């Protein structure tokens, strides 16, 4: 994440906090941003306005995992390693065997993995609870 983008993000966060002040501000960063960069950027905003920071959720694309792990492992690891919550998305499209293989591959890099499918609703309530517990 470049300096100018981080500054723009901080400006936007401060503006939203001072005007709308919603219960939740969801941030969807660019796919190239890793979790630690987001932590640093949002921490900068905390110098000026008060809010609760986190959780940092990383989605791991279940069906595309094999190719992604082969081609973009540093990016995936950067997103997984710094996250509070890791969720395997589109898990309804995975066989039990493939799901277990992905879990085995990445579980050493994170605290735990949620099996998520927004399509079926599986795992969504667990994420809601994880956010509420933060």
């Amino acid at each position, binding site marked *: *994440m*470049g300096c*100018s*983008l981080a500054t*723009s*993000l901080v400006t*936007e*966060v401060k503006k*939203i*906090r001072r005007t*709308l*002040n*919603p*219960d*939740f*501000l*969801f*941030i*969807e*960063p*660019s*796919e*190239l*941003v*890793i*979790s630690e960069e*987001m932590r640093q950027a*949002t921490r900068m905003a905390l110098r000026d306005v008060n*809010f*609760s*920071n*986190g*959780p*940092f*959720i*990383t*989605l*791991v*694309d279940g069906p*595309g995992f094999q190719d*992604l792990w082969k081609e*973009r492992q540093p*990016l*995936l690891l950067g*997103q997984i390693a710094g*996250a509070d919550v890791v*969720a395997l*998305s*589109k898990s309804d499209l995975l066989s039990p065997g493939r799901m277990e293989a992905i879990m085995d591959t990445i579980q050493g890099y994170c605290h735990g993995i949620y099996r*998520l499918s*927004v399509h079926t609703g599986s795992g*969504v*309530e667990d*994420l*809601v609870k994880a*956010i509420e517990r*933060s």
Partner: protein
Amino acid sequence: MRIVTVSGIRGSGKTTLVRELIVRFREKGRRAAVIVNEEGEETYAPDFLGTHGVEVFPLRGG
């Protein structure tokens, strides 16, 4: 205000998840806003934003 960051590669389901979380929290009477730094295949349709009282703030660049 609580910031919830949802990271992931393009197509991993970030917008789909955030939309679902907005709906779930809205049912509990909680308000949300979104900062988006990427235009994915999924978007926030105007009627969705109106129904759930959500504002979306695009962030351009890297």
